[in-house]
């Protein structure tokens, strides 16, 4: 051990001072213990015009509602599409199809909180058989763990097994989005819409029909909150009006609503009482589909704010009977 003298002592004191200075400096660098507090999500993303959003494919003649009753979701869907008769009119050959499902909860399908995986798988198969070049099963969910959630609710495996690509974003990690101005909107003048919507040619809305503690019922129109980057924002403004307004900006070519089993209470996450109406609702008009669906809970369309706004804003009509209602069994 070398002998220490005055000079060495100063040298050592100097090095300790340097080290402590580094410590002090480091403490001011963000990330060194300045932990991330809750930051407000920002609607980032380049601006986009409404024209860039895929428009619904017009099927002729204008379709009404088809309600299929049965026990086997796949068979019900096949029968329903057949009766609807619009699959060829959708002209899916070479098109990219995006199916917006409800995969938001890590509960098994029998808890009726997410879209039935057999139904999702059959939809994927049908669209691929109709010539679609790619089918994407899509959602933006209120969970941190996507893989575990998709495994628990069965949608991940069902979709992949049927040949779809699965794109699901976790709550704090949405993908790229584009900010769209919504003309005439008062609650939601602009929204960050996720990039996958713009990349698709045809958008299909496959909601789970269920009770919802916040919005009363979660039906087709509400399912479209999940196409946005900042879902929380809907609540900050005016929830029901905002739901209707997002549906004016993005319209699906088809709604396939899963009412095979429905959650009657403690929605959206459950667990709660589950009823089994055993129905699949196929429609091109989301308001009409929702108007029919709320009847399954003993409610009228006028009870649900976003259905009323939806009709006012021209998303569709609550008078589904006027469109023509076909009820079939499968």
């Amino acid at each position, binding site marked *: 051990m070398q002998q220490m003298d005055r000079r060495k002592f100063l040298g050592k004191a100097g090095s300790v001072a340097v*080290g402590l200075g580094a410590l002090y400096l480091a403490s001011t660098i963000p990330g060194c213990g300045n932990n991330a507090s809750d930051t407000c999500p920002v609607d980032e993303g380049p601006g986009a015009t409404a024209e860039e959003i895929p428009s619904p494919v017009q099927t002729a003649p204008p379709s009404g509602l088809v309600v299929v009753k049965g026990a086997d979701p796949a068979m019900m869907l096949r029968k329903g599409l057949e009766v609807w008769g619009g699959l060829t009119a959708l002209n899916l050959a070479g098109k990219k199809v995006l199916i917006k499902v409800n995969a938001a909860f890590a509960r098994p399908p029998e808890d009726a909180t997410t879209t039935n995986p057999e139904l999702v798988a059959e939809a994927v198969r049908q669209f691929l058989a109709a010539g679609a070049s790619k089918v994407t099963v899509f959602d933006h969910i209120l969970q941190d763990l996507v893989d575990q959630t998709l495994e628990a609710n069965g949608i991940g495996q069902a979709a992949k097994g049927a040949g779809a690509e699965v794109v699901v974003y976790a709550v704090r990690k949405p993908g790229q989005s584009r900010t769209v101005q919504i003309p005439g909107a008062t609650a939601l003048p602009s929204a960050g819409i996720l990039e996958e919507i713009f990349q698709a040619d045809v958008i299909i809305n496959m909601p789970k029909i269920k009770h919802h503690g916040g919005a009363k019922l979660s039906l087709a129109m509400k399912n479209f909150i999940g196409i946005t980057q900042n879902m929380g924002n809907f609540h900050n403004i005016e929830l029901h009006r905002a739901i209707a307004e997002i549906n004016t900006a993005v319209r699906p070519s088809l709604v396939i609503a899963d009412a095979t089993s429905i959650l009657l209470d403690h929605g959206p996450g459950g667990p709660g009482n589950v009823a089994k109406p055993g129905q699949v609702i196929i429609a091109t008009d989301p308001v009409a589909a929702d108007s029919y669906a709320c009847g399954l809970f003993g409610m009228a369309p006028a009870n649900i704010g976003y259905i009323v706004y939806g009709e006012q804003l021209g998303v569709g009509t609550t008078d589904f009977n006027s469109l023509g209602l076909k009820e079939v069994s499968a």
Partner: protein
Amino acid sequence: MRDLRIGRRDFLALGVTGAAVFLAYGLRRGEGGAVLLRPPGAQDENAFVTRCLRCQECVRSCLTDCLEPAAREFGTTKLWTPRFNPALAKCEFELCDRACAQACPVGAIRRPPDDEVRIGTAAVNRALCIAWADGKDCLVCYERCSYQAIESDSRGRPRVVPEKCTGCGACQNTCVTCPYPAIVVYPTTGKD
């Protein structure tokens, strides 16, 4: 041994200076008011802080990355101990097989069974909550709670049911109110 005597004096002087500055560094707290929650099984604060080596193994092993090293604002004695921050993610202690407890080399994080986990208790700040204060339709905390520890009252406003709350932080993580969430998990007083 003359050289050693001089050396020891110098060392002690340096050591005292260094220790003093280090403590001062820790005492310079940030804007305070932040809540310090621990991983599930580490709720006995004194026992935990005495054992914790601040090695960051638990932070690294977390399934949802909901742990972070505690910042200066919590003081030098707690510097770099693992802090559960719901702002980062929900604690999924039922799914992760207690990765944090497994990673800890000194057993500072215990493993109570799933139904005995009490990281803390959530509480709604009715002045900040947009359902309470502004009458808005918002129950996202209720939506995300998987323990049914939040109920919606007759006017659609959230209320915490403390007996069912595990402190997992899903509600705080999801709350749409920013930058300060309107529902926050607080440490439950007393030992578990």
